[in-house]
Every structure is written in C-alpha cells, then in structure tokens.
C-alpha cells in the first residue's frame, strides 16, 4: 500500500484548480506546460491528479441525461444530516470507512497505474520489462523469495530478465483469479473484470508459463510459446493458438483483420473516457487496418471516413456509431 491513501488537502485543491483550468476553453500551451511542471514537482501533486483523472473517468461512464436527472435531484433533509457524519468520519480516519464504501476500483492502491488511453513501458531493477496497457494498475513486490507483480486491473506485457539474485527467485503475476509463473519468457496477462465471469487471459510469445487458478490446486497447466488461454478462480479454459497481433497494443497500435466493428469499438473504448456505442446492425461489419491508439478521436474519424458509418456525438463523452 502506498502513501497515496492520504491525499494532501492542499494538493487536492490545486489539482481541482488545474482540472478546471485545463477544461476551460481558453486553456493554452503555456497552461499545459505549467500543469505538467506542477504535476512532476511533487508526488503528492501527482497522487491528487491521478484521483482527478479517476473522477473524470467515473463521470465519463454516465449517460449525461441520466446523470443530471438522478444526481441533481432535490436535496432532502437526510442529505444535510450526512454532512456532519461525514465530517466526523473523516476526522476519525479513512480506515473507518470500510473498503467497500465509495469503492471505485483498486487503482489508487497500486504502485503504478496508467490512465485511460495511456500505454506506459517501464524497466524494473532486474532488467525485466513491463508495458502497462490502458487503465491498468499493478503492485510490484520483489521479495527475498519471489518477484511478484500483482495485476489489479487492466493488461500487462512482460519480458522477464534472468534474476540478479542467487538462487534465482520465481517470477509471478497474481490476479484475482490465480497466478501465473513465468519460465524465462515473454508473455502478457490481462485481467477482465466482467460482471458475471471475471477472468484472466494469458498469452505466451516466448518460453512458457505455469497457470494456477486460486481454487484449483490440482488444475495447473503449462502454457507454451504461441499459445493463449484464460482462467477463472476455479478452472482453466482450453488452450488456443495465439491470435496474430494480439500484443500490438504494446507498440501503441491496434490491428484489425476482418475484425467485426463491434469488437473493434469495444477495444477502442478501453482507451477512452465515456460511452462509445455501436448500432446493433453495424456490429458485424468487418474492418481491416492498423490504427494508432494515441489519439482515439482521430481513429474514430478515420473509421468514419472509410466505412459507411456516422459518428453521432451527443456530448464529448457520449458517442454513438450509426449507419449513414
């Protein structure tokens, strides 16, 4: 757990001011530079800013019309009374809240995380290279016994390096569903937090990994280069051949090869705030091409130019793809 549990109130206030300024119409390059400088000048600033991004992300999940009607409903007496309790509880310390209250995903507890749309490569002390995909949170815990990456949400691509310690420690990736042990290797792990079937996807490019679901003590499996599968807490799915270009994201691109538009848009939505909907009759339209993930607005407009589709933008955060 990192120090970001407690956000400095002053940093929170400054982060809020920056968010307001950056969203205003007259925000220029100079503002952006000043904001970057503020962010990097103090870890407390960065921590507060990450929370601001998390907030924008949450707001982006709401259909605007519904959000307004529900959240701006008239204030009742009961709400007023909450103020006091809230103040008392904040004074008593945040642990008193219980982790489930106001819980918004685990990203803030992680050591490293990426915002929506961000792809970040990093090299660890032992030379292991990790690329974090969009909206990903990991804890890095290298101990005496093992090198452990806890994947809390999102997707990572890993190239392990031979351990510097002797004897070499195993390299493990843990998710909610179980763990993956690397055997000299290049592989990727994705945690899919689906409502009814949360699972972890694993794909191996080089070497091999061993998968062990949380509750499946006997059900371990070795996955070799060129193979992929997924697993839940209890069981591992069938082993499949590796889909081509499935790790293109780690190079910042998305490759479609006769990919149904619906599937492609679901993938693009991972890199954006807000809602991206596809008219059902377009969902099967096949699309091919290589797209830059850096600017998904541009990507969508590119799709609009080359396909019989039309982007309908209700608000900045609510886009519907419709037939022309």
């Amino acid at each position, binding site marked *: 757990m990192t120090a970001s549990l407690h956000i400095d109130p002053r940093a929170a206030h400054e982060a809020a001011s920056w968010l307001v300024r950056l969203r205003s119409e007259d925000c220029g390059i100079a503002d952006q530079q000043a904001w970057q400088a503020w962010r990097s000048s103090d870890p407390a600033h960065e921590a507060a800013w990450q929370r601001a991004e998390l907030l924008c992300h949450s707001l982006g999940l709401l259909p605007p019309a519904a959000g307004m009607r529900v959240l701006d409903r008239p204030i009742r007496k009961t709400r007023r009374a909450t103020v006091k309790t809230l103040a008392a509880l904040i004074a008593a310390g945040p642990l008193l809240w219980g982790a489930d209250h*106001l819980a918004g995903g685990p990203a803030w507890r992680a050591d490293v995380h990426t915002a929506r749309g961000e792809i970040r490569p990093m090299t660890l002390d032992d030379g292991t290279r990790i690329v974090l995909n969009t909206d990903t949170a990991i804890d890095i815990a290298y*101990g005496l016994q093992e090198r452990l990456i806890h994947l809390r949400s999102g997707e990572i691509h890993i190239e392990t390096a031979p351990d510097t310690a002797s004897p070499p420690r195993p390299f493990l990736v843990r998710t909610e569903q179980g763990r993956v042990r690397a055997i000299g290797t290049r592989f990727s792990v994705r945690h899919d937090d689906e409502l009814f079937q949360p699972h972890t996807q694993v794909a191996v490019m080089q070497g091999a990994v061993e998968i062990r679901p949380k509750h499946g003590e006997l059900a371990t499996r070795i996955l070799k280069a060129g193979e992929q599968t997924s697993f839940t807490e209890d069981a591992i799915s069938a082993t499949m051949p590796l889909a081509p270009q499935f790790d293109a994201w780690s190079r910042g691109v998305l490759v479609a090869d006769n990919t149904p538009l619906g599937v492609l848009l679901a993938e693009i939505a991972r890199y954006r705030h807000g809602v991206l909907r596809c008219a059902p009759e377009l969902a099967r339209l096949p699309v091919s091409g290589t797209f830059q993930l850096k600017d998904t607005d541009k990507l969508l407009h590119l799709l609009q130019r080359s396909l019989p589709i039309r982007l309908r933008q209700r608000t900045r955060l609510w886009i519907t793809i419709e037939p022309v």
Partner: protein
Amino acid sequence: MPAPAIVTLALSAPSDPADRITAIYRQHHGWLLRWLRGKLQSADQAADLAHDTFVRLLTSTHQPALREPRAYLTTVAQRLVIDHYRRLSLEQAWLDTLAHVPELTAMSPEERLDVLQTLHRIDAMLDGLPAPVRSAFLLSHLEGLSHAEIAARLEISERTVHRYLVQAIARCILLIA
C-alpha cells in the same frame, strides 16, 4: 520499490480480537437494534443495518472502535441509516429516469447496473455539498456547459462558478477511491 513485508503486516490482524468482538456483540446488539428500529420503517431493515454495523466493526482496522464500541457503533449505524435513505432516493430517481429517457432503454441490464453503481459512488462523494455547488459541478462535467452558461443558468457570477467547481472537485479528489 515497496517492501512486500509491509503489505503483509497491514493485512494481518493485530492481536486476535475475535473474543472481544463476540463480547461486544452480546453486550450491544440489543440496544443497537432498538435504536435502529426507531429510525427505520421496518424491523427487517433494522436487523439488516444492525448486521451491517457489526460487519463494519469486524472489518475495521480502527483500534478505538474496540475500545469505545458504543460510540463507534452509533456513528456507523447513524451513517448507514442516512446512507440507506440516500440510496433509496437515488434509486427512485434512477427508476424515474429510466422511464423518461428513451435512449437508456437500449442499455443492457449489466450496463444499467454499472451506471447505477457509478451513480451511487458519485452521489456519495457529492453528498453534503450545497445545492448550487453540486449543480455547477454536474452542469460542467455531465452537460459540458461553459462557465458563462452555468453562471447564467444558476444566476451567479463566473467567478463563483469557478470557485464552486474547484470546491466540488477537490472534495471528490479527497473522497474518491
């Protein structure tokens, strides 16, 4: 790079408090239930919230909770009651909205549940802000209105709009998790 040992320490309970919690339960469950019945419409709800209150106690790593159980239980139960009514009013508003906003009927049940959960989280963070502060924040972030438009809508100055927005966002930054 963090030492994993710290994580382990934070997760493991201090000296095993199970016995103390049993004692607290025996001693305090009765009055807590009566207190909750006075605040809620049904005995079932009171029993549920009493249960939730003890669950909070069990999962709390906050040590004074065990030393002064009555104060802790009252504070937690009070908040659960308020929360209960806030959730009820939010869910009512959400049902009304579903009935009145046609574009929402296209959502799958899972998407609706996601939206409802997000609404609950944001509602809890905004809870306690003055109405105009809350409205300014929502108009800016959900409707995408400019400061000038919000100022006109709420009949306040643009400076005040700016101040309200910073106030609401700063609060959310402190509470969001």
